[in-house]
């Protein structure tokens, strides 16, 4: 808890945002220490009795195994909210004309605030390592050792490099990611990466990899670079570490990467 607030202080640029974040962090920790039945108290209009019955049924049905302890069933605010959003597919469908949409926007902003730039200001790594991370679907399950690094699972949902035919279609194709977005040469890439901290494509790609929920609040894409409130994440922090995210940045944006062939 303490270290989380400190981390947050370091990365906050304005005082207001910072105190807001601390408040919401406190709220989160309060929520996570609440009893199971109180978890759903978000003012969301759904059948309380069904939710309560389900939560107690879930609690008696699961057991901890390996690194997957029961705290994984405790939802944070994003997870609670998105569990109630059935059939909501896209950020573009939100209008803020309803309480639901306003709440969605609040939660999106909370997620946005968790995105931090790379510590050394360099957004890129090695696209070859990035490909391996994209291929790797291991990590964080009860059968994975808790200390080993996680993979990105990227091919489960996305088409990425041309030669890998075994790709999923839950997410958009990322083949020719940079090419389709105006980076066609080593020169384009050098130019963009020189202004990494302001380049919209670099900022967007980094942001989605760090915390997808900052762009589409209930997207099925995991929040790869932020620490959720699970005790068991203490072992390895977020799903991917900063270096892994940099390697994925190169996989997607480097013109030499097989993605941009």
């Amino acid at each position: 808890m303490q270290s989380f607030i400190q981390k947050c202080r370091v990365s906050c640029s304005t005082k207001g945002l910072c105190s807001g974040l601390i408040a919401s962090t406190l709220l989160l920790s309060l929520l996570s220490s609440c009893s199971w039945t109180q978890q759903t108290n978000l003012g969301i209009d759904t059948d309380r009795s069904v939710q309560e019955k389900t939560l107690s049924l879930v609690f008696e049905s699961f057991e901890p195994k390996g690194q997957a302890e029961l705290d994984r069933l405790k939802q944070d605010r994003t997870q609670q909210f998105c569990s109630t959003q059935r059939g909501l597919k896209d950020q573009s469908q939100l209008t803020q004309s309803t309480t639901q949409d306003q709440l969605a926007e609040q939660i999106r902003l909370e997620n946005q605030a968790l995105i931090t730039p790379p510590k050394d200001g360099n957004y890129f790594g090695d696209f070859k390592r990035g490909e391996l991370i994209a291929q790797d679907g291991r990590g964080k399950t009860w059968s994975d050792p808790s200390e080993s690094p996680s993979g990105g699972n990227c091919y489960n949902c996305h088409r990425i490099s041309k030669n890998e035919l075994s790709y999923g279609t839950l997410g958009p194709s990322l083949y020719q990611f940079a090419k389709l977005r105006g980076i066609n040469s080593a020169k384009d890439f050098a130019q963009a990466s020189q202004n990494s901290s302001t380049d919209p494509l670099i900022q967007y790609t980094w942001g989605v990899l760090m915390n997808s929920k900052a762009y589409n609040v209930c997207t099925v894409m995991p929040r790869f670079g932020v620490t959720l409130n699970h005790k068991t994440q203490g072992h390895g922090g977020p799903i991917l570490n900063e270096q892994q995210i940099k390697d994925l940045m190169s996989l997607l944006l480097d013109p030499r990467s097989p993605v941009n062939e």
Partner: protein
Amino acid sequence: MFSFNTPFKFVLKHLGAALLYAYAWSAFAQAQQLGVSTDAALAQYRSMLQDANPADLYVAKGQALWTKARGPKAQSLESCDLGLGPGVVKGAWVQMPRYFNDTRRVQDLESRLVTCMEAIQGFNTQEIIAQDFSKGERANIALLAAYVSSESQGMTFKVPQEHALEREMYASGQELFYMRGGTHDFSCASCHTQDGRRIRLQDLPNLSTSAGAGFAFGTWPAYRVSMGSIWTMQQRLADCFRQQRFPKPKYVSPATVALSVFMGVNASGQVADAPGLKR
């Protein structure tokens, strides 16, 4: 895209994010198109195996097991009541999970088989629950499930919703289906609420629709080519939760039965085709 009463400020604030998002999805149609040839090739691979499903070998073993005197009481399961009366196997599976008067619980096929194995044959329920899939009596349950489900092949799903507990289990199953959690924010719905999508090369049935639920619920137990063995619905669900990064669901626990009620009821009117054949 936005309704007319949308505050203009909100639109402006989000135009950036929305545009970038639309941008990311722009290549989507292209990917779908490229996927067609792969899909056709995979369909060809699967249809070649479908014709002679190794699951048939396990159905024969399960049938032999059903009539064999076993367990501490040395009895066969021929008097087991799967919901249509003692000993009735034909058509029982397409009406499960259902409420059972004797246990006062809603039970799926495997849960009911465990009940019969304890009551009739004298096996210990807790020991069976503590075992691993594919080992000891759990391996036998997979054979029995293959046999029982095969006796409903070609029949139509009619999972009952008459008892209050059956309806309650449906509601809870639905709630759990959409419950996000774990390190990756996944719910069942993350993968199983859209038509025509794949994870890697695996087709993902849309379990919120009748056709999708019918296809998924109606083809487990199944012979898994990659495992060279029969997997039951309980095993399928447990491995889904593992990959969802959730803790482990206990064998035949209420949550797993609730999910089966949700799928089974959604599958109403669809035709059973188990045991199936899967990757």
